[in-house]
């Protein structure tokens, strides 16, 4: 009887006795993510479930990521199958207004220029010894687009998913801190003060409906591997612009992204198991991701300067910083920086145009990368 009681009591402290240093460190990391989300307001919708998932998975003997474990079920169902990031894109599409881009289509070029950092980072990662699939996954952090990063990581480098996702979402929330110094460094005060009038032409409803259909067909024919992401983004947008499926649009804006964000966040957190996450490689990935986002800003602003010259000084080069995908944060940064030097400089709508162009650009960059890798027999 005594031995039964002792064995029952010892089973109560088994979890405690099985704690490892790595597990404790990762629980602290999880708590730090919770603190950033709750206290600092950095991407709380993502960092809160990610942080909690990281705490849960590092509790010894919890079994949450073992076969039939709860978080394993979410991970296998939505991440391995790439379903979650695609569903998130339906929501993004339903919440995105492409009108500023349609009013001023040449701004789409800034969305393309804002993706060069991805490819530079890929080359740097290759130089550091990562294999091609891992390097492509790391480079995609530069898209500053969480779902796209998760999609590529789950397809080609699931072992990097935790680090890549945390980097993508952390840096996305740091865009207001990362971009302004680069923007200031690369532009003159005169350039930053360039005012841009709004185009007087209005965009017809027909064009807004045809746009998502046309973009899907055109871009997916060029880079078919991007069809799941681009298709879902544009489907969400078509539902919103058509105005005929308000119930579905409502679900795409609210219920679907809310549920998927919760399960996706928990699944990502669940990949942050101590032994797998606490490696020098993770730190290198975080550093490369940071570099990628900064490089995107650099290439975007430099291309903005080229467009400024070609347009005879009519385009404010700050808009180039909105060419990354962090929507609408990057556009907000551009407007704030423009107003810092001229209180009456309102760049918001133009920046939104570049920012939505950046969304399309980041998916295209990922799709081209995926298609090229498939062409090389690696996909």
């Amino acid at each position, binding site marked *: 009887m005594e031995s039964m009681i002792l064995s029952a009591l010892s089973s109560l402290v088994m979890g405690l006795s099985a704690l490892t240093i790595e597990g404790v460190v990762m629980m602290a990391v999880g708590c730090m993510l919770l603190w950033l989300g709750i206290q600092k307001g950095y991407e709380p919708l993502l960092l809160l479930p990610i942080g909690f998932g990281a705490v849960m998975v590092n509790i010894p003997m919890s079994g949450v990521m073992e076969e039939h474990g709860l978080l394993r079920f979410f991970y296998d169902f939505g991440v391995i199958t790439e379903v979650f990031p695609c569903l998130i894109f339906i929501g993004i599409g339903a919440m995105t*207004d492409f009108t*500023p881009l349609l009013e001023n289509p040449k701004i789409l070029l800034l969305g393309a220029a804002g993706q060069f950092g991805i490819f530079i980072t890929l080359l740097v990662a290759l130089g550091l010894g990562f294999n091609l699939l891992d390097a492509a996954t790391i480079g995609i952090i530069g898209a500053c687009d969480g779902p796209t990063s998760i999609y590529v990581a789950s397809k080609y480098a699931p072992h990097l998913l935790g680090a890549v996702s945390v980097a993508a979402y952390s840096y996305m929330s740091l865009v207001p801190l990362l971009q302004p110094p680069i923007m200031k460094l690369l532009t003159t005060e005169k350039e930053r003060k360039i005012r841009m*009038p*709004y185009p007087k032409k209005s965009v017809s409803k027909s064009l807004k409906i045809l746009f998502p259909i046309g973009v899907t067909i055109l871009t997916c024919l060029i880079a078919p591997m991007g069809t799941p992401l681009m298709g879902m983004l544009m489907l969400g947008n078509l539902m919103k612009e058509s105005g005929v499926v308000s119930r579905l649009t409502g679900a795409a804006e609210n219920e679907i992204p809310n549920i998927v964000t919760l399960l996706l966040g928990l699944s990502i957190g669940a990949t942050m198991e101590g032994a797998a996450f606490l490696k020098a490689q993770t730190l290198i990935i975080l550093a490369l991701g940071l570099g990628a986002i900064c490089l995107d800003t650099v290439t975007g602003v430099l291309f903005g300067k080229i467009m400024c010259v070609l347009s005879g000084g009519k385009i404010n080069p700050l808009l180039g910083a909105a060419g990354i995908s962090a929507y*609408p944060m990057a*556009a*907000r940064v551009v*407007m704030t920086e423009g107003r810092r030097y001229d*209180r*009456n400089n*309102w760049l*918001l*709508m133009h920046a*939104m145009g570049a920012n939505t162009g950046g969304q399309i650009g980041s998916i295209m960059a990922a799709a081209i990368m995926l298609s090229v890798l498939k062409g090389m027999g690696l996909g």
Partner: protein
Amino acid sequence: MATSIEAPMPGKVWELTVQEGQTVKEGDVVVVLEAMKMENAIESPVAGVVQKVNFKKGDAVDEGAVLLVIG
């Protein structure tokens, strides 16, 4: 001399922080305009008295529309 404050972009009047007859200082926020789901505080470029308010809360405005006049 009267100064017109125009909408710097198309949007919706989110908040009117002044009313006709009110005295404002240069830099006071007079209107908050909602555009692309962002609230944009528009400040008075001059000190004076609000002579006319042309829109009410919730109204849609085009770029260049005169929101209010300060004299």
